[in-house]
């Protein structure tokens, strides 16, 4: 018993030691506020919880405040309040890239550090933007995953996107096409980019259309959470189930049923909890003066290790997480 206790204590001490060292650089009594696009949005809740976990770890005071609607201006009232409350740092997922900027500038003028995550503002609104992954990484990773799932024989593939002018999706697709140029994907042939307009019904019908128009289709990448779940739903009741691979960006909660019934083998998304976690560390370091947010600044982000600030204040979380039958039950968002 005594033996077990001492092992436990050593284990605890061992895990706490590196944290204690990193936390030593951070100021005491930091007050860090998370301001999501909208409270009670399941995705944002996970991100904020990740942030609060980091804040707890570093011994600061954290809270989550925010509007119940995602209008352009509804976050402004909260920014003003946080200024009045003299917070050390604000971590915000902006509803509008510009509407909040004049008010975030006011916050900065009052000495409050500003970190954006998930959804950025114009650069003058913040010191650091914590981005999920760069577009290149997201685009390339999806082709890599699809290729692995289809296997070496390759075949015809299609993309089911959001709207034809969706900025995120178009950038990712551009990087998918770049990745496909590599010799190892010579047997993968992109035959069609379809648009489901981020509408469930339209995405469903487009999937049906793809499978009919291209009977030899081997795989579909849908880099949108609406698209991938509609495509999986269509495939799950289609005779093509098991012959066509569907992957892309989806949330574990939407995709769980399709992973469990074998329609979908694997898909990706960044872990929003880690995104919030990293943003909290970036904010704490800014507020402690250990970094200023300029390119090349480095800081310790708890369990995520050392991170470097990139061009125009961007810190990248890393490649998206792949979810499959083995790990999907560890995630709830």
């Amino acid at each position, binding site marked *: 018993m005594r033996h077990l206790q001492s092992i436990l204590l050593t284990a605890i001490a061992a895990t706490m030691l590196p944290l204690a060292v990193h936390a030593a650089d951070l100021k005491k009594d930091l007050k860090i506020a998370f301001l999501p696009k909208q409270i009670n949005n399941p995705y944002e809740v996970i991100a904020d919880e990740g942030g609060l976990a980091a804040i707890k770890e570093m011994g600061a005071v954290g809270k989550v*405040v925010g509007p119940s*609607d995602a209008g352009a*201006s509804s976050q402004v009232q909260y920014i003003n309040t946080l200024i009045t409350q003299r917070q050390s740092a604000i971590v915000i997922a902006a509803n*509008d890239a510009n509407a909040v900027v004049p*008010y975030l500038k006011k916050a900065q003028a009052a000495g409050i550090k500003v970190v954006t995550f998930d959804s950025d503002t114009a650069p003058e609104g913040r010191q650091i933007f914590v981005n999920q992954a760069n577009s290149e990484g997201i685009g390339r990773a999806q082709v890599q995953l699809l290729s692995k799932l289809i296997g070496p024989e390759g075949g015809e593939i299609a993309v089911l996107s959001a709207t034809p002018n969706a900025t995120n999706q178009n950038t990712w697709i551009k990087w998918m096409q770049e990745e496909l140029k590599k010799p190892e994907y010579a047997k993968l042939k992109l035959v069609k980019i379809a648009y489901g307009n981020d509408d469930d019904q339209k995405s469903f019908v487009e999937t049906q259309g793809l499978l009919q128009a291209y009977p030899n289709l081997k795989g579909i990448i849908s880099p949108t959470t609406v698209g991938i779940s509609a495509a999986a739903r269509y495939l799950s009741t289609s005779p093509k189930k098991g012959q066509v691979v569907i992957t892309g960006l989806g949330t574990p909660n939407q995709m769980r049923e399709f992973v469990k019934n074998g329609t979908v083998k694997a898909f990706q998304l960044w872990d929003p909890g880690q995104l919030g976690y990293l943003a909290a560390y970036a904010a704490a370091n800014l507020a402690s003066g250990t970094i200023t947010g300029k390119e090349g600044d480095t800081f310790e982000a708890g369990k995520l290790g050392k991170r470097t600030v990139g061009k125009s204040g961007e810190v990248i979380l890393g490649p998206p997480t792949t979810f499959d039958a083995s790990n999907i039950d560890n995630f709830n968002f």
Partner: protein
Amino acid sequence: MSTATHKPHLGWEVMLVAVLAAALVLGRSLSADFLTTSNIANLLADFTEIALMALPMTLIIIAADIDLSVASIMGMSSSLMGVLWHMGLPMPAVIVLCLVAGTLAGVFNGVVIVTFALPSLAVTIGTLALFRGVSYLLLGDQAIADFPTALTTFGISNVGDTFIPQPFVIVIVAAIGFTVLLQATAFGRSLYAIGSNQTAARFSGINVSRARLILYVVSGLMSALAGIIYTLRFSSARGDNGEGFELSVVAAVLFGGVSIFGGKGSLPGVLLSLVIIAVLKNALTLSDVSSEVLTIVTGVLLLSSVLVPNLVNRWRDARQQKALAAHA
């Protein structure tokens, strides 16, 4: 009759003053920062657009009508502002054209309601969707933000070192104008007559159609003005700007003691109600009360503004009948 209609809202205004005092005390006790200059400025700035639309809405509801399209006209004017600015028009021309567009939207509302004798509720629910649709059509999912710095600075600055945000000066001027219009002109008084009994008002020589048309035109104009100010305050023209504001506007008017059935109400009451709602929202936000609770508080306020006068009237009627019965 006239004294009977005036008595209740005088009482309501007294009650609003008491509620405001309580809200201020609450705010002060919740946070030491509540009465700072910057916080009061934030508090006032927050209801600029709602106030600009609530002023004409007060007159409309007193005349027993409603205009639910105000926030959509506001959004349309915001979108139009972005589009015209990107077409390279000078800012004064952009502003004038936006105001004209809002006025025309009001004319459209008024003409449809008055000419076809249709219920304003139904017509303006229709134009709520219609004008919002136009607003999205103009800008799509784009946001235009590159407005001249001089104007966006106007949107977020205070008058000198005071706690009055610059855009709020427009609210003050408009509030005085509307109060004079409603309380001190024949036109204003005629609205009470129209709201109490439209047919009787018509027979007593009031040009009911003209008065109602004017109200919708003015409402359109003020909504467009609200859209312009909103766009400058947030330096962002978007199709969804102001979505849902119509309900906050109607809520503020009703809580201000204006009867939804028309014929009763005053502007000072509505102005008090706007300030109370802003003070409560600010004070509760400052003490980290969640936005769901805030929504509930606003709901309770609105419900009480409809319920309390009703209960008071019932109680009064019951007492009168008892008194009559005692006499008989």
